[in-house]
């Protein structure tokens, strides 16, 4: 069991307990537990292939898109288990945004790239106004 500094529940935005990730037979993470404080910048540092990205991907369930990935353990966002059944993954990813190691500009204008996070989750009317202001540029 790894040791970690447990935060006061009020400070912890995200708390992970005993998170293990498997890609098929291969285990990529072994019982990781950590609290991530609200209003702080937290950095994960480690050698290549040690599981930093894998852990980050568990935080907004991007591992769901990998066919043979399996997550064990518990991750809570504001005290709510994000792996419970009935969790709206799209909503979760709007709250826990993620930018990957390899930069991924969409083949669109810079404005559209920056605004896409808002545009994709906005109501159709708000999206129309975002697109309109982009076209005005």
């Amino acid at each position, binding site marked *: 069991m790894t040791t970690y500094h447990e935060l006061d529940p009020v400070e912890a935005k995200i708390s992970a307990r005993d998170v293990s990730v498997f890609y098929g037979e291969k285990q990529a993470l072994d019982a990781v537990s950590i609290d991530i404080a609200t209003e702080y910048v937290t950095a994960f540092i480690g050698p290549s292939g040690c599981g930093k990205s894998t852990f980050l991907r568990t935080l907004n369930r991007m591992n769901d898109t990998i066919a043979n990935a399996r997550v064990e353990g518990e991750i809570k966002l504001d005290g709510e288990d994000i792996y419970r059944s009935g969790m709206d993954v799209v909503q979760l*990813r*709007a709250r826990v*945004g*993620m930018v*990957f190691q390899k930069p991924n500009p969409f083949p669109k204008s810079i404005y559209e790239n920056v605004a*896409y996070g808002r545009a*994709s*989750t906005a109501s159709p009317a708000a999206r129309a106004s975002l697109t309109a202001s982009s076209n005005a540029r």
Partner: protein
Amino acid sequence: MTEPAPLAPAEKQARLAARLRQRHRSDQLFRLAGMAAVAFAGLVLAFLLFTMTANGVGGFQRAELKVPVNLANGVIQLDPSQLAAGDPVTVLESAGLPALVDSELERAYGKDGPRLVVDGAWREAAKRIARDPSLLTQQVDFWLPASNDMAGALRGEGTPAELAQSQALAQSGALTRHFDAGFLSRGDATSPQDVGIWGALKGSILTMLVTLALAFPIGVLSAVYLEEYAPRNRWTDLIEVSINNLAAVPSIIFGLLGLAVFLGLLPNWRSAPLIGGMTLALMTMPVIVISGRNAIKAVPPSIRDAALGIGASRVQVVFHHVLPLALPGILTGTIIGMARALGETAPLLMIGMRAFVAAPPDGLTSPSSVLPVQIFLWSDEIDRGFVERTSAAIIVLLLFLLAMNSLAIYLRNRFEKRW
């Protein structure tokens, strides 16, 4: 493990140089082979186009006989307002135009005169009068389609008497070949002097519209579902194998399917572009699915991750990112599928689109022919006059294909420019 003995620097240099020469040589050889292949393909294409145009240009012309008709001699008692009252051709017929044309032919070319033009040649005169009613008070030179015998004799085929007569007429300037604009506006006919391609062309256009309207959305939706949503399991494997096999099924089998299923359900629409389009859509769909899946697969997964990672839903990922990026590839597949469908004859023979249809189709459900079937039917005709007409029809088919492809390429470039 023993190290090879180190080489003297000079020897090493020589070996390197030799290998470099060898590499340059194979590079040049490969380039030459590629150029030869392209040149061969270009030659074949140029030969095809040259022979087609050389034969086909004649098909857009037809032999016509000059017939001087005096419309002002009082035989036809009509004023222009009466022409507009009904179908002008019918009005002129009851007013005695056929008899007048015949008597003028006899006056100009002797008592065999009326046989120098095709039956019903007066209709051409009637159509011209309908366009310009002021002709009714004038002496007019009409150019009427020459009879099959005269047209053949002008090409140098026929009995000595016919050849002599056509030569005499041609020398006096009364029998020449004119560009036949009507070829592009008439339907099929029994005489090569009267045939037109419009019936088959319109049939092909309608059939292609039905094919595109069915095959494109079904094909693209299947491709998107299979690539983006479907789980990988035995069922999707089975579907994938089935679709790949469907693309390789001989086209006549699709004709049998159309005959059994579509005509079984809708027996009244035999020969209709709707049924033809549905049958060809079955054939085109797998091509679109396969090319669509490949195009969607080629969109980098990181684009999907990036969009998903900031809260886009699956549908948004597909419509904002995947489809726009895959569209050029999908359109290329669609062009290939549609071009194949346009040239397809076999399945359409099965569902009755080889019938003789004189009138161009009114709509999706009226009997019709299509270009490749029309070409096949004309190439089977005994009358030598059909040889040129067949080549002309092939040129029309090629031009239609070219127009279709240019439209698709234009659309593709337009979509690419939006990024």
